[in-house]
């Protein structure tokens, strides 16, 4: 049986527009939205290419290649609003999307504070933040990067016996944002990342451990060598062999860079305007108050050159900037977009984050704890009995109350030195006490994502084990 052949070919005019950039398409759809009753609207279009290869035990395990594109439309009919998105850019489908979005908006209630930001607030200058690297890598080169990283891990130590694999990812794309104020902005960005996850076996007990290490950069040339990443992954994995539980007790806790970044991430969520106006944050009513010691300063910087969270304008077209969130222990600013700012009687901080098809929310750009002067070594040396945390697992964080209880892996510290690896234990406290209890901040700030923290020591938490 032969079924009907009906290949979907996008309309010619739209196809031409895509090749010339999406600005004309955005303008056209915004005009259409106006015609169907929208008083204001904005549109976001994202497209890009991704490549990913996973190598395991020297052979390619999985290779993925794709191009993707997506368009999101948000309309306001008076003070009513709706958002839609599609991956189908055919004219017929986009026309339908515009009418459906306007219909949807008419079905929800009026929200007096909804709407686009004021026209005069839109970003005017578009600084080049050096976010895009046009380097095109051959498939075999990318496979080779992953293979070298895994080989480096496997050969680093005889106890490394197996591997979850190594992965190299590259992606590049662009974002176009336009609205009915006449704003139209576009930027390109790229990223390159390499990670390795070795598995080590304890010769005596047969027990296995895995850990991983990774590098991620916007510029390919800045990525650490596969050999360095592989060797670090192996070092982190074999040192976990022989991990045991420890006794239940209160002790000082040292978080390594990545786990300190995770703790800092809770602060980032708690200062989101949405969590605050819903009174779903443990930092409600704390603006202007001291939440940490004076050696704690936290910035969110959207304009860091080459930063993994940098962007010239936010998800509503407002200029990004550097915001001091915590100034020498005092909570000085929330992170806000237009809507959450209005709800709190404040101004947007340029932190609107927009995944295509969703309403704007608040997200960090480059959110980090300003480094101190001590090395990680010196911080560990300051602890007589305590815990050095290298991995956090589970979701035991209550953002409303600040209650914190998570599983950890790490090392027991005795007399200032790492004595033995530990696992199957938890640490617990409240986030309020944890931030107030930050005793030391390390000098080792490295950005491996939008959130970054140096090594951090907290005076005391409850460890539950035996």
């Amino acid at each position, binding site marked *: 049986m*032969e*079924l*009907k052949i*009906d*290949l*979907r070919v996008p309309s010619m005019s739209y196809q031409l527009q895509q090749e010339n950039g999406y600005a004309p398409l955005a303008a056209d759809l915004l005009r259409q939205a106006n015609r169907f009753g929208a008083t204001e609207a904005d549109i976001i279009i994202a497209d890009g290419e991704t490549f990913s290869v996973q190598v395991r035990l020297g*052979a*390619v*395990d*999985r*290779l*993925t*290649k*794709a*191009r993707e*594109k*997506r368009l999101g439309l948000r309309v306001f009919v008076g003070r009513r*609003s*709706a*958002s*839609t998105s599609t*991956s*189908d850019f055919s004219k017929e489908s986009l026309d339908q*999307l515009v009418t459906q979005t306007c219909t*949807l*908006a008419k*079905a*929800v209630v009026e*929200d007096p504070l*909804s709407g686009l930001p004021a026209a005069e607030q839109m970003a005017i200058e578009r600084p080049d933040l050096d976010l895009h690297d046009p380097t095109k890598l051959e498939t075999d080169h990318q496979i080779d990067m992953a293979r070298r990283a895994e080989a480096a891990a496997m050969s680093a130590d005889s106890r490394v016996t*197996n591997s979850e694999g190594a992965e190299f990812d590259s992606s590049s794309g662009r974002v176009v944002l336009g609205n009915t104020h006449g704003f139209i902005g576009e930027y390109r960005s790229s990223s390159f990342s390499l990670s390795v996850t070795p*598995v080590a076996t304890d010769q005596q007990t047969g027990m*296995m*451990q895995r850990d991983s290490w990774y590098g991620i950069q916007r510029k390919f040339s800045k990525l650490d060598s596969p050999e360095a990443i592989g060797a670090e992954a192996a070092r982190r994995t074999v040192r976990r062999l022989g991990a045991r539980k420890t006794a239940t007790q*209160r002790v000082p806790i040292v978080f390594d860079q990545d786990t300190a970044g995770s703790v800092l991430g809770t602060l980032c969520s708690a200062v989101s305007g949405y969590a605050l106006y*819903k*009174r*779903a944050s443990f930092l409600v009513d704390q603006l202007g108050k001291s939440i940490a010691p004076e050696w704690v300063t936290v910035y969110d910087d959207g304009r860091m050159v080459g930063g993994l969270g940098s962007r010239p304008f936010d998800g509503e077209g407002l200029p990004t900037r550097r915001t001091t969130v915590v100034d020498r222990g005092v909570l000085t600013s929330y992170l806000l977009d237009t809507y959450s700012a209005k709800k709190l009687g404040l101004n947007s901080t340029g932190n609107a984050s927009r995944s295509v098809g*969703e309403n704007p929310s608040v997200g960090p750009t480059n959110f980090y704890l300003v480094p101190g002067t001590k090395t990680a070594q010196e911080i560990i040396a300051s602890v007589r009995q305590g815990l050095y945390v290298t991995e956090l*697992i*589970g*979701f*035991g964080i*209550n953002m*409303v*109350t600040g*209650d914190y*209880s998570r*599983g950890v892996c790490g090392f027991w510290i005795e007399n200032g030195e790492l004595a033995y690896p530990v*696992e*199957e*234990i*938890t640490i*617990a406290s*409240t986030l309020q006490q944890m931030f107030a209890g930050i005793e030391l901040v390390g000098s080792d700030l490295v950005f491996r994502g939008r959130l970054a923290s140096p090594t951090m020591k907290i005076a005391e938490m*409850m*460890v*539950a*084990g*035996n």
Partner: protein
Amino acid sequence: MGELVQLTTFGLSEREIQGALGRVKVRDVDYADLYFESCVSEAVSMEESLVKRATKSISQGVGVRATAGEKTGFAYSDDLTRKDLELAADAARYIAQSPGASQPVPVPVQQRPTRNLYPVEQATVEVATADRVALLNAIDIEARRYDSRITNVMASFNTEYKRVVVATSEGTIIGDVQPLSRLQITCIAEEKGNRQVGTFGGGGRVPFEFYQNEERYLAYAREAARQAILNLSAVAAPAGVMPVVLGWGWPGILLHEAIGHGLEADFNRKKTSAFSSLVGKRVASNVCTIVDDGTLPNRRGSLNMDDEGTPTNRTVLIERGILRGYITDKLNARLLGIPLTGNGRRESYQSVVLPRMTNTFMLAGESDPQDIIRSVGHGLYAVSFGGGQVDITNGKFVFSASEAYLIEGGKVTKPVKGATLIGSGPEILTKVSMVGHDLKLDEGVGTCGKEGQSVPVGVGLPTIRIDEITVGGTQD
């Protein structure tokens, strides 16, 4: 029988699909498939007594996959033209490194799934926005009426209507229509500066009437409010090793984390799971029998077929304490030489197939739940949980209680604040000494994440007693 999903949904013919499969299936490719997906999802949400957000998203695309030995080549496209299919096919077959020529593949034959576990009309999923708005408004009123200390109610109603077609180099084309919806409610309670949260919800592959039947949506609202109010009087959780009683239903997340992930075939093929060499061995006490069952009508984790077109199954994972087997997709079943269980799942056309759970639960035992609680001198009774996580390799897992009580002298006493439970997968079930007769599955809100892919799942548990597990509270 399930619905016959027409290829015309995707504007394609059988001949074109055969052409594309032939292009992927070069000499050294063992297996190839095309996964077409079209999904419409909608969400409305309420906060501060206003239903002020509505979103709708349409996605459509194709994932093209080739496997050769242990290798997988994968490409996807959100355009479905012949040219896009060809480009994706060329990218996917790259891994085989075979010289040029395509191989003939059988003329595909359209099939339909042999059962229909969720005969839900599209119209009963995509109901008028006004009906959803009315539902959310009623929830707000009900939750606030429950107790005047409820200061905010946030609720969202999400629906998804997904059509998929899988065409394989084995000559089959099979499609399914997969409706899914979820209602989720969060209440904030406030009293003298003490703020607490309660969350509840439910859903499944169900029509809109499911939420209206027996005023289920209002019961959800009261339950979220009850939890928030209860937490106002919660005391700090204890820290240390103690006996723990888990209540029925959602605490089945224990099984999902502690053993479910460890029994997914990919980790075992790679020998990176703490369960790798334990088939046939004792991993639980003999009161424990655990299954993964994708065939339960209307359940969130159920499917007529998995995302490779294999019918889903009821697979016994642990029988009276003995590990029986793994859950598999085609690639891992072939490489391990073990049965295909219909657990090959993917988040969307943009992701590769992995062995994943469906609905995972422990069968009912013989104990009276009250006797189980009475058997504990000093311990914890945990009835609701947030999320959990496991490290497959060392087997350590955690999951966090959102509603729990102290047990003192065989009686349930004070509510305690969220505590994390931590244990070791291959050991924890050997410490289960009593299993209740009150098996229940969860309400239908679970989502499982693996390698960055989220898929809907279910869990279930009767009341059980675990003789000892580490409780991560703050109190000595």
